[in-house]
């Protein structure tokens, strides 16, 4: 830097003041109640620091006072866009502690509803992301599709969002026979919506100009921050727990793990849309191979796992959802730690948003796909 340039930057600092701005907790684009304290200069972001805790609901403490089956509905409220995957991670941990074998049919049903949940969650993300970038209508389009899937989930579980469907040792009840034709139709619709979204949003010139090369997350940095889910895959690391550490019956299905090359917002978006297609593929295979039999193992009324501990992780729509469960042999967990993917993924925000423009910052934040219920727990 020459002396003249140096004086120029110095005088610029004197001329231009830094503005400290709160984004959130009540803000249209923080996806809940996240607060980001940003220091901006003109249109540029110097620094951004997330401030959490506006939705901290003492989940881990409450869980220590409730019995094992009671906690299942409570997990629904953590990542409220992916209730099934929350329940799944939790019951998997308890089943591992108990050494319980889950009936095959129940495993397949879990895969079906779990992948439906992934589609539901990604659909909402697609809409919300378009909204972040200023396009209102895609949001309403995906919500139409979500409503149809809600109906389907309601048919199975009785609820729209917070299902309380999985049980320790299986699922609450079998899939009703009228579910299957409806599912087939819904999947066709979902694939159509994914194609539509691809054509209308992903291939839109403005959308690409807003997302390509923005918020680049190099794979090394992603590993340093233990990023998981579509964010990690967008950076080109083909890491998917369904494939890398198969749980349940995922090793029996044929599906691709979509990855990006550049690790920018655009790649993350493409990965998520592609994952919807892959989920539909998995569901079709699971329905085709659905075995007959029980949907619930015999479980004692009072569940008292032997003293010990277990860490299980599953692939939620947002990444590695880990449950660290410690039992002291009593009817309640001694300690339940929720390793929330959003919490970990959000941490990289200051790193990839530093120096970005204010508008890009919103695009980057949106591309992380955070759910505050899970971040704050």
């Amino acid at each position, binding site marked *: 830097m020459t002396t003249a340039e140096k004086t120029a930057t110095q005088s610029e600092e004197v001329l231009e003041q830094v503005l400290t701005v709160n984004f959130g*907790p*009540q*803000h*249209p684009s923080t996806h*809940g*109640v996240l607060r980001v304290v940003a220091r901006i200069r003109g249109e540029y972001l110097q620094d951004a620091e997330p401030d959490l*805790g*506006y*939705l*901290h*609901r*003492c*989940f881990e*403490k*409450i869980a220590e006072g409730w019995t094992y089956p009671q906690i299942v*509905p*409570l997990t629904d*409220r953590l990542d*409220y*866009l992916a209730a099934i995957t929350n329940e799944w991670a939790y019951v998997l941990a308890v089943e591992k502690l108990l050494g319980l074998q889950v009936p095959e049919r129940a495993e397949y049903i879990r895969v079906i509803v779990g992948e439906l949940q992934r589609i539901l969650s990604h659909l*909402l993300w697609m809409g919300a992301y378009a909204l972040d970038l200023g396009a209102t209508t895609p*949001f*309403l*389009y995906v*919500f*139409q599709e*979500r*409503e149809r899937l*809600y109906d389907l989930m309601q048919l199975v579980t009785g609820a*729209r*969002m*917070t299902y309380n469907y999985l049980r320790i040792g299986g699922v609450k009840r079998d899939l009703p026979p009228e579910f299957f034709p409806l599912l087939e139709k819904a999947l066709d619709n979902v694939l159509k919506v994914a194609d539509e979204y691809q054509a209308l949003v992903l291939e839109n010139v403005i959308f690409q100009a807003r997302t390509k090369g923005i918020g680049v997350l190099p794979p090394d940095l992603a590993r340093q921050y233990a990023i998981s889910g579509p964010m990690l895959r967008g950076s080109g690391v083909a890491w998917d727990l369904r494939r890398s550490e198969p749980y349940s019956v995922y090793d029996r299905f044929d599906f691709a793990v979509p990855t990006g090359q550049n690790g920018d917002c655009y790649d993350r978006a493409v990965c998520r849309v592609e994952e919807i297609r892959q989920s539909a593929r998995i569901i079709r295979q699971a329905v085709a191979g659905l075995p007959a039999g029980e949907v619930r193992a015999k479980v004692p009324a009072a569940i008292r796992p032997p003293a010990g501990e277990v860490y299980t992780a599953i692939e939620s729509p947002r990444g590695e959802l880990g449950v660290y469960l410690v039992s002291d042999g009593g009817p309640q967990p001694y300690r339940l730690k929720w390793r929330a993917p959003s919490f970990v993924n959000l941490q990289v925000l200051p790193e990839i948003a530093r120096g970005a423009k204010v508008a890009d910052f919103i695009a980057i934040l949106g591309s992380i796909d955070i759910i*505050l*219920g899970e971040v704050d727990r």
Partner: protein
Amino acid sequence: MDLIHAPFVPGVIQTTVDQVINWSRKSSLWYMLYGIACCSIEMMATGASRYDFDRFGLIYRGSPRQSDLMLVTGNVNLKMAKVLKQLYDQMAEPKWVIAVGSCAVSGGPFRGSYNMVDGVDQVVPVDVYLPGCPPRPEALLDAVLKLQRKIMRPQRQGVAS
């Protein structure tokens, strides 16, 4: 003359003017875009195509200055309570609050734990309580209709504040 805070004077003109103003207020309840937790997703669903808040004239505004209605859609903890109060204070009069969901009504499943406010009526005055976890969009629409009825007849049903 301050029509709104004037003592209730029986009189045809006054009543008619009041009725017209109340009608305009109930017909144009703009809600603040303030989602907290699970219920906010159902709030979005209610704004989306199938249920369509806009039919009743409800649209969202980002700024509390231009909002008439605050939907508290989720649980409020100690950290959030200050924000909630601040946002409520910054809304322009007249303003209404609907506590959406069990958490906002009473604390829900999280009631009594170390960081929670057990019901938002400890922080801001609530006009309509809507239980459910989360309440369905139909229920949310119903709550809005109840609020509209309340706005039309403040004398008979009593105003919260």
